[in-house]
C-alpha cells in the first residue's frame, strides 16, 4: 500500500505524451543553451494515471466522510461548482484580452462582489486576494493606507490571544507591531483591557467573530466604538462566517473591513492546500485604498476595469485573484439563496451544539460560554490515563474520521476543536459522537491502542523531528 516515487518508476525512452511537431525545428544555440539531463521522470500515461490514482487513495477528502476540522469549515463541495469552473469560456479567458472579449468573466466578478456585500453588509468588495491570509494582508494594508492618508500610519495592531497565527503574521507584513489582548473568562475580548490599550498609536484590532472558541463577541459594537473613538479600525477575520451568514451582518456591527474565505464558508474545495480565495469587503471610507483594478459597469454599458485609483494600495496579485475559484463560490451562493444561506448557518450551529451536548462529560469543556458553529474540548479528562489530544486525534483515523483541529486555539491546553458544519447528516454526527465516546472509553481501558494509533493507514505516526533536523526535500538518486 505504499507507492514509489514517480522518479523511481522512470525508464529511459518512455513518455506520457506524444508531441506533434508541425514546424521546422529550430535549434536554440549559444551560451544560454541548456545542456544535459533536466531530471524529469520518463513514464507512460498508464503509469502516470495509476501513480496518481494510487496517491489519491492515500488521501482523505470531504467526500470520504466526516471532517470536523475546527475553524476550517470543511463543508460539502457541490460538484456543480466544478462544472461551472471548467466551462471552456472561462478556462481559456486570458486576463490581458480586450474587455470586449471577457465580458462574461467581468460580469461574474461583479455579481459575486455584490452578493458578498449583501451577505456581509459592507459597501465594497475586492476579489483579488488569493487566500484568507492574503485577504488579511490586503485589508490591513488598506487600514494602513487609511491612516497614512490621515498623516500617520500608526504603530500597533491589537490581536486577541485566541487568534489564528495569520493575524499577527499579517500585521507584521503590513508593517505593524502586535499587541496581544487577553481573553476574559468567557473567552471574549476583555473590554477593560481593550480600553486601556487603545490609543492614537493603534491602527486596528483584528477580531475573529465568532472567535476560535466558537464564542460570539457579544460586545462587538462596543469594541467598535472604543476603537472608532480613537479612529482605530475594526478588522474582522471572516474565517468563521459560517456561524453568521443570514443571521447578522458584520457591516452592521461596526466592522470596517473584513475578509471571507471562499474555500471555507462558500464551498469551494480546499484542494489539499488551496487554491482558496480571500475577498476583502469594506466600508466606503476605505474604498479609495482598495487594490486595482476595480471592476466597473453594468449589463447595459458593459463591464470594464478601472486601473486609475491614485490612493490604492496597488496590486496584491499578478492578475485579478483566483478567478476560477470565485466562480465556484458564486455558483454556491446562487444555489443557496438568502434563505438557504441562513439555514446553512442554523444547521451549522445546530450540529455543533448537538455535538457539544452529546460529548460534554466525556471530554472536558474548558470554556463554558455558549458557542455557535464550533466547540472546543480538551484532553483534561484523558490526561489522567496518559492519553493526549494527539492520541485521540490519531485514533479517530482508525474509525474513518478525520481528526478535529488540535492544539488550537493556543489559549486552551490540549485543545480539540470541532466544527461539524451543516454538511453532516444526523446519522453521520451520531456516528462521530459514538466513536468519540468509544475513544474516551478506550483511553481509560486501553490507552496503548491510542498511543499506537493510527493502525490501518499506509504509514503510521511519522517522525517529524527527523524530517526537520535533516531535511530531505527532494529526491536524488543518491539518497534512495
Amino acid at each position: 500500500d505504499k507507492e514509489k516515487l514517480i522518479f523511481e518508476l522512470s525508464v529511459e525512452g518512455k513518455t506520457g505524451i506524444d508531441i506533434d511537431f508541425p514546424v521546422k525545428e529550430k535549434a536554440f544555440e549559444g551560451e544560454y543553451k541548456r545542456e544535459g539531463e533536466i531530471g524529469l521522470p520518463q513514464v507512460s500515461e498508464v503509469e502516470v494515471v495509476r501513480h496518481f490514482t494510487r496517491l489519491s487513495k492515500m488521501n482523505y477528502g470531504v467526500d470520504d466522510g466526516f471532517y470536523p476540522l475546527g475553524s476550517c469549515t470543511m463543508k460539502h463541495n457541490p460538484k456543480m461548482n466544478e462544472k461551472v469552473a471548467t466551462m471552456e469560456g472561462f478556462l481559456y479567458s486570458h486576463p490581458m484580452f480586450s474587455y470586449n472579449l471577457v465580458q462574461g468573466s467581468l460580469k461574474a466578478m461583479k455579481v459575486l462582489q455584490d452578493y458578498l456585500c449583501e451577505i456581509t453588509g459592507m459597501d465594497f468588495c475586492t476579489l483579488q486576494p488569493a487566500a484568507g491570509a492574503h485577504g488579511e494582508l490586503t485589508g490591513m494594508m488598506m487600514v494602513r493606507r487609511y491612516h497614512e492618508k490621515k498623516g500617520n500610519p500608526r504603530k500597533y495592531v491589537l490581536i486577541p490571544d485566541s487568534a489564528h497565527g495569520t493575524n499577527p503574521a499579517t500585521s507584521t507584513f503590513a508593517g505593524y507591531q502586535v499587541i496581544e489582548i487577553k481573553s476574559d473568562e468567557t473567552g471574549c475580548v476583555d473590554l477593560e483591557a481593550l480600553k486601556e490599550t487603545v490609543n492614537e498609536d493603534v491602527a486596528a484590532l483584528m477580531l475573529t467573530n465568532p472567535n476560535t472558541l466558537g464564542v460570539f463577541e457579544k460586545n462587538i459594537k462596543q469594541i467598535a466604538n472604543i476603537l472608532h473613538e480613537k479612529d482605530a479600525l475594526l478588522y474582522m477575520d471572516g474565517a468563521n462566517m459560517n456561524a453568521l451568514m443570514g443571521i447578522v451582518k458584520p457591516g452592521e456591527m461596526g466592522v470596517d473591513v473584513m475578509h471571507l474565505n471562499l474555500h471555507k464558508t462558500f464551498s469551494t474545495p480546499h484542494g489539499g492546500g488551496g487554491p482558496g480565495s480571500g475577498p476583502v469587503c469594506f466600508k466606503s471610507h476605505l474604498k479609495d485604498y482598495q487594490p486595482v483594478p476595480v471592476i466597473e459597469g453594468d449589463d447595459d454599458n458593459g463591464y470594464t476595469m478601472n486601473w486609475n485609483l491614485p490612493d490604492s494600495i496597488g496590486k496584491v496579485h499578478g492578475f485579478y485573484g483566483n478567478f476560477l475559484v470565485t466562480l465556484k463560490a458564486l455558483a454556491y451562493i446562487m444555489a443557496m439563496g438568502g434563505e438557504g444561506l441562513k439555514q446553512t448557518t442554523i444547521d451549522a450551529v445546530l450540529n455543533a451544539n448537538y455535538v457539544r451536548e452529546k460529548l460534554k462529560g466525556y471530554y472536558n469543556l474548558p470554556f463554558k460560554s455558549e458557542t455557535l458553529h464550533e466547540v472546543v474540548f480538551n484532553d483534561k479528562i484523558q490526561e489522567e490515563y496518559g492519553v493526549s489530544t494527539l492520541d485521540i486525534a490519531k485514533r479517530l483515523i482508525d474509525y474513518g474520521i478525520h481528526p478535529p483541529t488540535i492544539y488550537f486555539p493556543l489559549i486552551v491546553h490540549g485543545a480539540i476543536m470541532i466544527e461539524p458544519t451543516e454538511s453532516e447528516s444526523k446519522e453521520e454526527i451520531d456516528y462521530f459522537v459514538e466513536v468519540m465516546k468509544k475513544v474516551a472509553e478506550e483511553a481509560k481501558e486501553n490507552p496503548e491502542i491510542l498511543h499506537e494509533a493510527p493502525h490501518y493507514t499506509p504509514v503510521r505516526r511519522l517522525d517529524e523531528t527527523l524530517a526537520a533536523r535533516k531535511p530531505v526535500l527532494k529526491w536524488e538518486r543518491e539518497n534512495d
Partner: protein
Amino acid sequence: MSRFLPLSDKEREEMLKEIGREDLFSPIPEELRLKDNLKIKAHSEKEVLDFFKKLADMNKNLTSFAGAGIYHHFIPSAVDYLSMREEFLTAYTPYQPEISQGTLQAIFEYQTMMSNILNMEVSNASMYDGATALAESILMAKRIVRKKNTVAISKGVHPHYLKVVKTYLKNLGINIIELELKDYATDIEGLKKLLSENDDIFAVAVGYPNFFGNVENLKDIVPIVKEYDKKAIVITSTTEPLAFGLIAPPGDFGVEIACGDAQSFGNYPGFGGPLLGFLTTTMKHVRQMPGRVVGKTKDVDGKTGYVLTLSAREQHIKRERATSNICSNQGWCMLRATIYLSLLGEEGFKKLASLNYSLSEYAKEKINKTKHFKVLNTKPTFNEFLVQTDVDFLKFRDMCEENGIFPGVRLAKFGLDKDKFILTCTEVITTEDIDKLIELMEKAQ
C-alpha cells in the same frame, strides 16, 4: 438549497430538543440580528448552470497570441481527470500526514521536479502566484542579508509583479531602485554604476526570460553582484518556466533565489487565476524560505513517509515572527503541475520547449519581412517577443479580432509604449495561424 443540507425538519427539531437551548443564536444580541432574509434568490442546479453557460458564452476565446505572464498550453486530459479525484480536490492541507500521504508525496515530487527544472537545491510547495513569489523572495533575501535595506529590480520583470512588489515592500521600509533597460534587457553598465554608488543593496532581481522575452545576461549579472557584496542575492523571476527545456536555468549561474509562476504547467489561463507561484533556493537559505515544504521521514515502523516540515518558519507556529503570513495557497495547482510534468517527462519537456521556440522563431522571421511590423529583441527569446508597429495598433487589433485572432498583448495595457506589443507562440498555435496573422499585418495600415 435543500439539496446541500442533509437535515430534515424533523431531525432539526429533535436535535434542538436534545440541546435544550430555545434559541440557537442566543449568544448574539437581539439588536444585531437581521430582520429579513438576504436578498439573494435560490436557484436549481439547472438554473445555475444555465446562468454560467451564458456568461461563459459572453467570453470570446479567439486564436490567441496572448502571453505576457499567462500561457495557453495544451493540457492532456489525464491532468484534469486525475486532479479532479475527490481525494485530491476536497482534502485539507496535509497537516495529518497519515491520511495525507497522497498530497504529501505529490508535493515532494513537485519539489524535486521544480528544483531540477530550475537547477536549484530546493523548492517550496507553492506560492499564490509569480508576483507574490517575487515579493516574498525579496523579503526572504532581506532576512538573509539583514543589514542592508535596498533592492534593485530590473524594469524587465513583469510590470504587474513590480506593482505587487511595491505594494508588499512599501510598508516595510525597504527601498526599491528600478534598473533601467537597454534594448529591453537589464543595462549591465547601469547596474555596475548603481552598485558602485550605493552600498545598501541586498538583492538584485531580474526577469529570466524577462517580460519582453529576452534572456537576461545572468552570466555577467551574478558575478557583478557577488563582486559587489558576496552576501547580496540575485533573484530571478520567470513567467514561463517551460523555457528551461531549452535555456540554461538560473541555478547554472549561481542565482540563489529563482521564483516565478508555473501556471504554464498544467493550469489553465482562467482569466488569470488560480496560478502557481514557485520559489526555489539553496539549502543554505531554506530556513528563511516562506511557504510550506515537505520532507521525507520514517514512521514508527521504519517505513518511508512524507510530512510538512521546517514549519518553525510558518505563521501557525511563529506568528508575528514567521517568514511569511502565507497559509492556504495553490496546492491543487501544484498537483496539476506535477501530473503534467510527469506526463511530459524529460523528453516531452524538451521537445515541447523546442516546439514553442521553433514556432516563435518562424513567426519572428515572417514578421520582420512585413512592412509595418518589426521584432525588437536582439537577444535570444523563448516563446514570446516584442513587436513594434508604425500602424495604429488598436485598429490593427480590431481587424484581427474580426478575423478571429487576438494578436498579442499591447504594452499600453501596462502603461507602457502604445506602438509595441508582446506576441506569444505556444504549441496551440499553428503555422497556419501565424500565416493568417502575417496576412493581417500585411493588410494593416
